[in-house]
């Protein structure tokens, strides 16, 4: 029986040997792991946003975001991140159907979208730190802004690195259709980053 089990696990690339079959995500332990991680990360961001909300509601001197924060750049950033989510899901669809050239193109566009977002965020921070005189040390408005957007920016940076690794592996031929699950797991993280930005953009910039 152990020989049969060993033959079974070698027949497909999705599951490694000696791994249990997760009932929530059959065939993909990585997906379950990523969802579990994202649940914890959602709690972290949720707590940060709740703390921001509590500080803002509890303080009658809180300035209107419109005084300091521009909408144009961040609206474009939001749109770029949404586009990169689309390219990510198209990259996943490509590798699942074995279209590796299409996968490489869409993954490259996803990485580019992430880099554009980071570049625009850096541009905005430079403007706020330099010309507007904002700083994490000035007051709670500035501190909550920089902590929330900075924490999210770190997540975007991590996602860009993650996607770049998958892009390089796709270009060198180490990532194949059999390992499409790896791209799906990375996609979960990238879409989560996009989802959190949607909420941060609304709560910090618009409300």
């Amino acid at each position, binding site marked *: 029986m152990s020989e049969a089990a060993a033959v079974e696990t070698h027949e497909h690339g999705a599951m490694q040997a000696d791994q249990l079959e997760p009932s929530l995500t059959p*065939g993909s332990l990585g997906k379950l792991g990523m*969802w579990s991680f994202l649940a914890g990360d959602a709690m972290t961001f949720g707590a940060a946003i709740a703390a921001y909300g509590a500080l803002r509601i509890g303080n009658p*001197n809180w300035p209107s975001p419109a005084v300091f924060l521009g909408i144009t750049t961040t609206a474009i950033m939001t749109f770029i991140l949404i586009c990169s989510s689309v390219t990510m899901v198209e990259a996943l669809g490509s590798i699942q159907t074995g279209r590796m050239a299409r996968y490489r193109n869409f993954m490259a566009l996803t990485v580019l979208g992430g880099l554009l977002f980071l570049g625009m965020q850096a541009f905005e921070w430079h403007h706020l730190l330099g010309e507007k005189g904002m700083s994490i040390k000035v007051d709670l408005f500035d501190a909550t802004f920089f902590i929330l957007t900075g924490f999210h920016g770190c997540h975007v940076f991590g996602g860009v690195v993650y996607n770049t690794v998958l892009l390089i592996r796709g270009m060198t031929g180490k990532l194949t259709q059999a390992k499409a699950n790896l791209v799906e797991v990375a*996609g979960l993280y990238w879409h989560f980053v996009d989802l959190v930005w949607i909420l941060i953009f609304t709560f910090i910039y618009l409300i």
Partner: protein
Amino acid sequence: MTTQAAISGHEVEHSGPNYIAVFIYLSVLTAVELGVYAMGLPQVAKVGLLIALAWAKAVLVAMYFMHLAMEKRALAIIAIIPVILVTFLCFMLLPDLTTRMWTKFDHPRPVTNPAEMGAHPVAPPPMQTP
């Protein structure tokens, strides 16, 4: 059973939702958000609308890009628990916030010990509109 489940997982292609349609919905919702922001509505209406729009976008991303709609129903439990807990966290802070101010710059107790100065920040100068 393991082999069958794994093999069937490989062979089933994501026929998938129409991602371009979801992208268009997200773009339209973003545009509507910007419109609500620019309209100058009363604060309560503006906040309510913006939160509803943001959550609609978040649900679209979760359901269709993250494929939650195509996964087993029970997986949504992992996704929904943080939402419930954070919503509870926000609401459980409301009694504290609405019955007293947390950050009062004009503290009623006079500060006599210089060591305490840093703990009680002075009110910032009045905002100057650019």
